[in-house]
């Protein structure tokens, strides 16, 4: 969105962080697959988002903030408490659960508690802090559990990847469980499953290849991983959307985004095609007014058309068309 638009509708900036990450991925990735999974691994949490047919999935009922559905358009992300700085919980049966809380700074970086990052450091999967400190701490904990430091470190990495893979599976289960209201959709449910994994965040180079192996998918770890978020914000072009509701019985149409209500001149001849072209025309005007390019591609996000029958007689039709400027992300690398 443009700066002016954010002043007018500041609420639309909520959850812009995760949105920027996904745009950063779109700007930087070289994956050509239409469907892929975005995994942003941080110190405290890992965020998952899904790209389907080249588009990032959005929340159906808008962003959820503190349990409230806001209806504000937002990228669908699922956050899990799993990251480089997560707590480790050893179960009496010899199992290991990572997270969801943060343990603090890893030992190898001068912290006080063992974290996944220490396992990474000790195994030299990446250069992080003091490898000696990490190894010493793993040795101490390993003695307690009857494991070598190496076996323990490998167990930590394995548990991390396992939990991540489970979170990915539950995200796609959730997406596939979303209700469908037409016969056409139930017969041909959209294929949402990823064909590749794209990772970002500092721990990504270590964990993404292993996650991709577990999921049996090709992968890519983005360059400039740590700054992908900022790159996304800079590369994204502004987008706009608008909804036309038309009721031919009342001969009225409304565009809530513009706060407009107007008459439908010849309601009998008004149909879905007319509703659609009207929506596109108004969106183009609005884009021009807001100083956005005229060449932006407009696409129909959603549309519905129903007859209204009263007492066995069709008295009118009801249409809903939502159109949007296709969110454009300038490619940062070829």
């Amino acid at each position, binding site marked *: 969105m443009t700066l002016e638009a954010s002043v007018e509708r500041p609420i639309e900036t909520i959850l812009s962080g995760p949105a920027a990450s996904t745009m950063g991925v779109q700007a930087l990735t070289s994956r050509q697959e239409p469907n892929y999974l975005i995994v942003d691994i941080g110190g405290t949490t890992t965020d998952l988002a899904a790209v389907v047919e080249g588009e990032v999935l959005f929340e159906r009922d808008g962003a959820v903030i503190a349990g409230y559905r806001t209806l504000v358009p937002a990228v669908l992300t699922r956050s899990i408490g799993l990251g480089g700085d997560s707590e480790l919980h050893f179960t009496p049966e010899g199992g290991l659960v990572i997270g969801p809380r943060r343990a603090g700074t890893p030992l190898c970086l001068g912290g006080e508690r063992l974290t996944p990052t220490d396992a990474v450091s000790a195994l030299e999967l990446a250069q992080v802090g003091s490898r000696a400190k990490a190894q010493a701490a793993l040795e101490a904990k390993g003695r307690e559990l009857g494991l070598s430091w190496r076996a323990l470190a490998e167990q930590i990495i394995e548990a991390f990847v396992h939990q991540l893979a489970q979170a990915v599976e539950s995200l796609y289960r959730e997406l596939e469980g979303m209700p*469908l209201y037409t*016969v056409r959709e*139930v017969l041909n449910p959209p294929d949402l499953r990823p064909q590749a994994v794209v990772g970002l965040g500092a721990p990504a180079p270590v964990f993404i290849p292993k996650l991709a192996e577990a999921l049996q998918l090709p992968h890519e770890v983005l360059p400039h991983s740590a700054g992908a978020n900022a790159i996304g914000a800079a590369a994204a072009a502004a987008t706009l959307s608008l909804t036309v509701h038309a009721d031919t019985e009342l001969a009225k149409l409304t565009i809530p985004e513009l706060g407009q209500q107007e008459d439908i001149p010849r309601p009998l001849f008004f149909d879905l095609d007319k509703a659609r072209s009207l929506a596109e025309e108004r969106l183009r005007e609005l884009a021009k007014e807001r100083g956005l390019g005229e060449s932006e591609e407009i696409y129909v996000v959603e549309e519905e058309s*129903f007859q*209204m*029958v009263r007492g*066995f007689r069709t008295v009118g039709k009801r249409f809903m068309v939502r159109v949007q400027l296709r969110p454009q992300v300038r490619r940062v690398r070829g």
Partner: protein
Amino acid sequence: MGKTEPVVGLVFFPAFDWCITPDHPERQERLLYTRDQIQEEGLFDHPRIREFRPRLADPGEILRTHVVLPSLERNITESHRIAAGGTMVAGDLVVDGVVDRSFALLRPPGHHANRIVHGARGFCVINNEAIMVDHLRSRLGPDLRVAIVDTDAHHADGTQDIFYNDPGVLHISLHQDGRTLYPGTGFLSERGGPAAYGQTVNIPLPPGTGDEGMLMALEEVVLPILEEWQPDLVINAAGQDNHFSDPITNMGFSAQGYARLTDLLAPDIVVLEGGYSIESALPYINVGLLLALAGLDYSKVREPGGGRRSQSREITRQVAEICRQAKELWDTRGQVDLKEVFGSGPFFERRRQIFYDTDQIMESQQEYIRLCPSCPGWRVIYTSSTRNRTPAAAVLLPWKPCASCQGEAREQYGELEKDQRFSQVIWQEPKSGAGQAPTNLRGSEPR
């Protein structure tokens, strides 16, 4: 009673792209206003109401319950398979303990579909709740006791037909008197077949019956019968066409009445049937029903045109008399000499003409039930219709058949197969898998 804060699974499938004809009552937008109302009231967001996706029923799951002529493919659309599949999802959700109660809010409906199907009757081709009951029995075993309470304004003749000789099912139908409405059946005298006599209960209500009459029938007949019969599951086939604004019936129920009914009946699984007042009634009835199912306050639900309709004193008197008779028939069902009703065998014969209003078909049926002392008895049905003129024959085994009925049925099937007069000879034998223990049945915890 179950939990005070039940979690409700909603299998919502409005089939926005399916209709009989665009201006037929069973049309695309039938559940559109219902969806909008549920959404606007925030019920999709309520933590105790969870939405689930339907699935496609397999042909085998449909043919476990129905005999479809000339073939399944020639009679059903994908939408029918999704409605039946969605109803099975609703059943599974409850018996697997995923939710406490469920509501299959979907279309097309099914309660006028008989066991034998030549086409569509009363907007129905296959019977969603019957398919679900047989699905649950195939999973959990044939001893499952299921009560179906049908509260559609039209007599549930299809469901009655499918279970009329099935001792595992209690079928209660409350409806507008058959002398005044399609399908013209559902009288007190229809009480079930020789193996399930008395387990078909009909409560025909006079036109103009309002909430008062319906709740009287519920409290004085339905609830005491359920209390006595002790089902493992109570299914409500929830037609919504008893509403005062429904265009094709003559009853006087309100949205409040339906919510109160749901509250008192406390069904485990609700399956939508008819209801064609799509703007003035359905949105409010469904919101009230969902609130009542989830144990939430429904007292503020009001439809346009003003809530309750009072019924005349004469109607109250008539309803009271019907309730008295229905209850008496139930109480005395064990005292009836079945030999007098069904003869002394070896077979009970039933001949019927069945009209398919939606598809304008007339079917002729001849049925023979083996009067067996040790099981519900095998059956053979000969059927032909104006659509399928060459007769077909179906040999049906009940759940839990005895060895001698199995032998006799097989022998009969072998003979019929050699007989050139029949276009098809169908064998139907319900089977139960290695039933795993159900987790959420009424029998397992005190009501």
